[in-house]
């Protein structure tokens, strides 16, 4: 097992390299580069002068160099911990990520914890009370949750919040707190702003967890070993929670592997709709503007989390299920 884990960890590096090369190539694929898109945007804002510094700008950003040279230079510096600068924000990529990672994780971890914390017990309840009134009610709610995208819910909540409080609760902080040090008032302000995105994403998240849990548990409850457990006088509560639920966790744990990357890469559209200062919004903009070093760094981060997450999920599965052995 230790050997297997070591092999998987070692395999992460070449995989990441491939992901990065591919990511770079995709960003280079469209016509033009960051400078072209910058000039077009400036032109749109009425700045016709920008076109005149096109070549200078390209040279300044080293965009006149061939792609492989830029890639290799950046990667060499990346290996030493220097992720490069963002073209558009004119700041080191490291600072941008550092500034946003805290709030991003706060929202996504809260969302994750709540949707799994509610979803699993509700799924179990739903399965153990199959076709009862409460199960039918929960199933209906689930379908609504799965059917409506979270950004649409976020928009609806935004309007609702505005109608109720008269405030437009976009972002994660009110303007007056933006550059303030942390205080209780600032924390409360943050919590107030978190309600809308967390609620919106939790609804779809919970719906998914519930649906998976209910389906798998029903599957397990129909199996022979459940009858054996009941026949030997094991209390129903133990039959469900110790045996049936443990046997139903496979797909959820497999999904846990994706969740790690989802923490900085999930609910992107909701982030944009609500103007949240998260990594997702930066990543999308960087990709649109061909801000390659910023986008490339975030891509590597996401790739790394996917690989680590999958490895963790595989280890947990092997630990939980004696039938799974990696040799």
């Amino acid at each position: 097992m230790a050997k297997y884990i070591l092999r998987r960890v070692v395999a992460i590096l070449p995989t990441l390299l491939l992901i990065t090369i591919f990511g770079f190539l995709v960003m280079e694929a469209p016509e033009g580069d960051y400078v072209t898109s910058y000039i077009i945007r400036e032109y749109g804002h009425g700045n016709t002068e920008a076109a005149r510094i096109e070549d200078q700008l390209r040279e300044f950003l080293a965009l006149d160099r061939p792609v492989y040279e830029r890639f290799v230079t950046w990667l060499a510096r990346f290996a030493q911990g220097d992720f490069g600068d963002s073209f558009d924000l004119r700041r080191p990529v490291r600072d941008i990520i550092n500034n946003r990672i805290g709030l991003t994780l706060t929202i996504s971890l809260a969302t994750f914890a709540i949707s799994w914390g509610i979803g699993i017990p509700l799924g179990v309840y739903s399965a153990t009370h199959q076709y009862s009134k409460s199960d039918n009610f929960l199933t209906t709610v689930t379908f609504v949750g799965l059917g409506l995208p979270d950004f649409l819910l976020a928009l609806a909540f935004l309007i609702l919040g505005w109608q109720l409080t008269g405030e437009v609760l976009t972002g994660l902080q009110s303007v007056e707190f933006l550059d303030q040090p942390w205080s209780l008032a600032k924390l409360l302000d943050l919590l107030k702003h978190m309600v809308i995105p967390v609620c919106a994403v939790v609804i779809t998240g919970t719906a998914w967890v519930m649906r998976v849990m209910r389906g798998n548990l029903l599957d397990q409850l129909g199996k022979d070993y459940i009858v054996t457990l009941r026949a030997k006088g094991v209390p129903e509560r133990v039959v469900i929670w110790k045996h049936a639920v443990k046997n139903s966790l496979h797909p959820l744990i497999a999904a846990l592997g994706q969740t790690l990357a989802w923490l900085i890469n999930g609910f992107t559209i909701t982030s944009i709709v609500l103007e949240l200062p998260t990594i997702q919004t930066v990543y999308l903009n960087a990709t649109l503007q061909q801000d390659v070093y910023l986008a490339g760094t975030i891509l590597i981060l996401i790739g790394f989390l996917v690989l680590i997450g999958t490895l963790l999920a595989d280890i947990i599965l092997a630990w939980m299920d004696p039938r799974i052995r990696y040799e």
Partner: protein
Amino acid sequence: MPPILSRISVTDMHPNLLEITDLRTHFFTEQGVVPAVDGVSLQVKRGGTLGVLGESGCGKSVTGFSILRLVRPPGEIVGGAIRYYGRETVNGEDLTALDARSEELRQLRGAEIAMIFQEPMTSLDPLFTVGNQIMEAILYHQDVSKAEAGKIAVEMLDKVRMPQPADVIKQYPHQLSGGMRQRVMIAMALSCEPQLLIADEPTTALDVTTEAQILELMRELQDELGMAIMFITHDLGVIAEMAEEVAVMYLGKVVEQSDIQSLFADPQHPYTRALMQSIPKIGQKTDGRLEAIRGMVPSPRSIPTGCPFHPRCASFIADVCNVRAPRLQETKRGHSVSCFLYEDGGGVNEA
């Protein structure tokens, strides 16, 4: 000896351990009501073996599940009584009157009435060790420590002739063969020394050699522990080896009931006779084909009127068998049959 038995003196014991009277277990499906068990009466003698014989879908397994109240919706016991004379020995207690989820019934399951099943491959939880699962049965019924339960588990595995029981206890079900898993199931079922073991086709999924070993083992353990066995099977050979009393079931009803010798020497119901004739006999020269019962088992959703066997019966009497339902009547001492060929006073239940 289990604590229950030691409290009871031999004199006030009811001769039967279990009496099923007119049991009706129906399944309320969307396509209609399926009367899987429809008026079954059976008795299991203390320490004896009752064989329940029948082909797939005759309701023999549902009868077994009904005793432990393990029938799940849409199935439901709609009538009859299951009297168990284990604790309340004079009047017995009616298991159908208990709530299927009650603590009372839970204490009965596994401790007094245990069950083993047809599919040893899927009847154990794949995520827990064999030892853990046997100990679980012990810990929920006996006041012993975990260490003691572990010791009992090893002893039980040894008792079912499991090689290296102390190692097997740490293994997972998928590491064992079908025969070994069935031994684990038996060890688990007998770990609390139940008074009744319901064996639902325990050897059907096993190969013939393993089957012989398991049957042998069950007989030995029965002698040693003195429990009664209700042996459910479709296999006439297995019944002949295991049972003292036999009930033959067809479409949710008992059609013939007798001791084993009388049943094989003098099968009376046309269905039983047809079953006997359909066994190939070694050394007996036949001039052609093996006898088979004509037709198919009707769908349980459209059970024929009158005697349920009449469309396939070789001795069908027109305007009698398809109109009225025969009653189970004693034709000689200890031998009952439900057929108009043997009915003297004529059918009673108008269909």
